[in-house]
């Protein structure tokens, strides 16, 4: 795949704005005329939940650029790390929920969607998939769907382990790289899958768990967290996750509590209105919409 070739420079800021179809989704929310090809965002958009300054580790940063983060807590943390032009916009997934509320006649959700913690293109995880699967099978009572990250999904061996466990194995798609091969409907597909299930679980607190909690699903984190080969310990690593958000850890959690936490982490109560978001992201005002 051409998109996997390393470009002339390291991973850049602007192309990350299009990961998971984030920019496309915000363009749709803002009612831009061509949301499949959104204009450039005037800054970096946080593209995954993190406990750092809102930028993915190692993101090359153009000094003085705006950083659009998901939550007020992330903004504070980012400021504490020397970032200045940090603006809270909320997570694109939260905007998606605003645009696509769960229909009243939606089928009753059942089973569990399980996100084995993944690395990304630059980091592979080490851990025992089978041990994790055994624990999931022990805890979860209904059917289980395992959602693998695209690079693990492509590894037949890994996929086979989950299939042999009787899990339905899916992948939400490729988040895109260097402006190519984005799955623009990534989050839409993910929301659809989350809503099919009653529970969302993972062995590491990550975006998907928060998304599930925000979508009203029971969210739980348990099992071997598996460590990244070259995990960055700057922000406390996996142990910090447990310490700071213990409410999500364990086989069963309190729905109301995890939902409230998800609202904060994903900035669901901070969401900008379409015109407001256009102004913040540097997109044309709605009065200029019709051309």
């Amino acid at each position: 795949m051409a998109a996997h070739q390393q470009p002339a420079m390291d991973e850049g800021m602007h192309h990350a704005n299009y990961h998971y179809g984030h920019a496309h989704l915000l363009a749709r929310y803002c009612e831009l005329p061509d949301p499949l090809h959104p204009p450039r965002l005037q800054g970096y958009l946080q593209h995954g939940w993190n406990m750092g300054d809102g930028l993915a580790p190692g993101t090359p940063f153009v000094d003085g650029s705006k950083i659009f983060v998901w939550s007020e807590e992330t903004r504070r943390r980012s400021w504490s790390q020397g970032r200045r032009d940090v603006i809270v916009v909320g997570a694109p997934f939260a905007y998606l929920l605003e645009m696509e509320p769960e229909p009243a006649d939606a089928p009753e959700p059942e089973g569990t969607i399980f996100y084995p913690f993944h690395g990304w293109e630059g980091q592979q995880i080490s851990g025992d998939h089978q041990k994790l699967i055994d624990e999931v099978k022990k805890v979860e009572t209904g059917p289980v769907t395992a959602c693998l990250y695209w690079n693990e999904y492509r590894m037949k061996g890994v996929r086979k382990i989950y299939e042999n466990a009787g899990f339905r194995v899916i992948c939400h798609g490729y988040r895109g790289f260097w402006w190519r091969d984005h799955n623009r409907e990534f989050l839409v597909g993910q929301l659809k899958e989350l809503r099919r299930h009653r529970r969302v679980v993972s062995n590491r607190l990550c975006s998907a768990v928060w998304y599930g909690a925000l979508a009203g699903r029971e969210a739980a984190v348990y099992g071997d967290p598996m460590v990244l080969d070259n995990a960055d310990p700057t922000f406390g690593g996996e142990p910090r996750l447990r310490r700071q958000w213990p409410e999500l850890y364990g086989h069963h959690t309190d729905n109301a509590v995890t939902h409230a936490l998800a609202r904060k982490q994903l900035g669901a109560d901070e969401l900008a209105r379409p015109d407001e978001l256009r102004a913040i992201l540097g997109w044309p005002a709605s009065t200029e919409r019709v051309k």
Partner: protein
Amino acid sequence: MSERSAALLPNQGTDFAAALSAPPVNNLRRIGGEMFAWSDRDPQRSEPLPRGAVLRHLLSRYAGPGRTVLVAGPHADEVVVALADSGAAVTWLLRSLIDAEDAARNHSRVTVLAGAAVKLDAAEKFDLVVAADGVDRLNSAEGEQMTPAQLIDRLAETVQPDGVLLLVHDNRLGVHHTVRLEPGSRERLDSDWYPADDENDVERPASPEQLAARLAESGLTVAASYAAFPEPATPTVLVGEGLLGTVGSPLRPRLGTALSQAFAAAFRGRPVLSDPRRLVNRALRAGAEGTVAPAWLVIARGPGEAPAVDRHALLIGDAQGTFAYEVASAADGEVHTTVLEPLEGPIEREGLRRVSEPKAPGADAGYVLEERLEHLAATSDLRQMRVELTQYDTWLRAQAQDGLVSGPVALAGLADVFVTEHGPSLLPTRWESIEPVPVDTAEIRAVWQFAVQLITSGQAHPWSLTSNAVDLTATMLGMVGLGVDADRVRDAVDLHVRIEAADQGLNLSDQHDRRLQLLSVSPGAAQVDVAGYRELTEALWRQRYQASHLLAMMEWTEQIIKSRDLQVSKMDWEVQFYKKTWAGRFLWISRSAYRVIMRDGRKFVRGRRARKAAEAQANAVR
């Protein structure tokens, strides 16, 4: 001619011919110590003269037929005229002989004393002694010099046992001194042969309490004391007992807005160390406004049967003219405004009308919308900010008819909106629109004005620090679903310039310059009203931040272009590769053929239509 004048200012000198040709005046007495070749009315040589509607109102309470009045020191003519018009016998002490002669000529009913206070007849007493100019201009350059404390004593001695003294005393800790930014100020004024702000004079009263104690030594009792803002010479806001230092007073929110407006008007365009409004606002929160007030105005009574002295919690008046009103709260906390002195006549300018009956909402508990939004902006509370702005938007639109809004609300800023448990209401405003204004324009102006303030005063807000005023306006109005672009902001700025033109009497050229200045409020813009040095340095910091970001961005963009060029080159190579295959060639030929057919087909159809039309026309002619 002084060195200052010689170096900086052309000085006309004394017109001896005019002086000799002037007719003699019989209501002028030279008591000694009078200054020649000198005028306190020249702003280049001396401080401004005391004036203002509030001052005139207070004086009117104690002057009247049969009463004797001493006006000590230079005052604006309007003050003396008002006293004389009351029927009182007015004596006016002036140190400048030129000023005294002019005063005697222009005010035949007034007895003018030319000379220094030290020469005043100790035996002569007055029912009312007016020293709204303080004591700093009662000494002359000639002869014996009295200390400020002695001058206060001297004034107190001239008060009849049943008389009243009205004294305005400059506060050396006043915010006007703190923010002063006048390089060479010590040398600027010809009147400062001794420095006016010598803070080491231990005898000079340095607080209202010390002032009261000093007057008490002369047998006077302070019956009413006010903190005077924004400047000693033009006290347009007086804060009195019941409100002064009382943080929980229901009048507090009105006071904040009134002081902000008063300081903006007084310090507009004047270079200062830092915006005095910020300092005063902090003092208000601490109940310390009396400590930083530019001056204290005291009304002291003699030991005899002096007239009753009114006390007001909050008096607000014009710097020029007569218009003054009181804001007070009843025992039950209900707040009301009372016009004490009406406008002299209707004032209409730029399609706007001066409000003659300022209204204040009755409720005692609430907050000023602007202050609330500033707090929410500083704490990044976007959620609550949306709630507040939506409430404001709903309230404003509820007052519109067919998309138009009229009256004071059309020109109200967010600082003029007071929010109570019953919703927003309007604080007293100065102007109203004669013709209705589109509600969008009114709302954009209010929010834009707030955006300008956020940027230029360097206050924290949750949006990009490189935002310009239009960006911030669009963001905030986006919160209420109103899309805004630069054109709509331009209409709002035009409305704003009209308000300023009406209030400040701007001419067309000034209005043009002002419009350009307001339309270009960017991160690097300094304040657009009070020229604060601190705010200027903050603007400079923002400008540098933006410039360094732009440089970094240029470097980044270069790299991106290189990278994208490489990608395009690779893709071009791929395209060429595919074109070379048979399938690719077939597709390429098919596409070319399709284009040719479409192009020529269209040409053919157009030609046939033209021919038919020509034939039809020819047939019709036949």
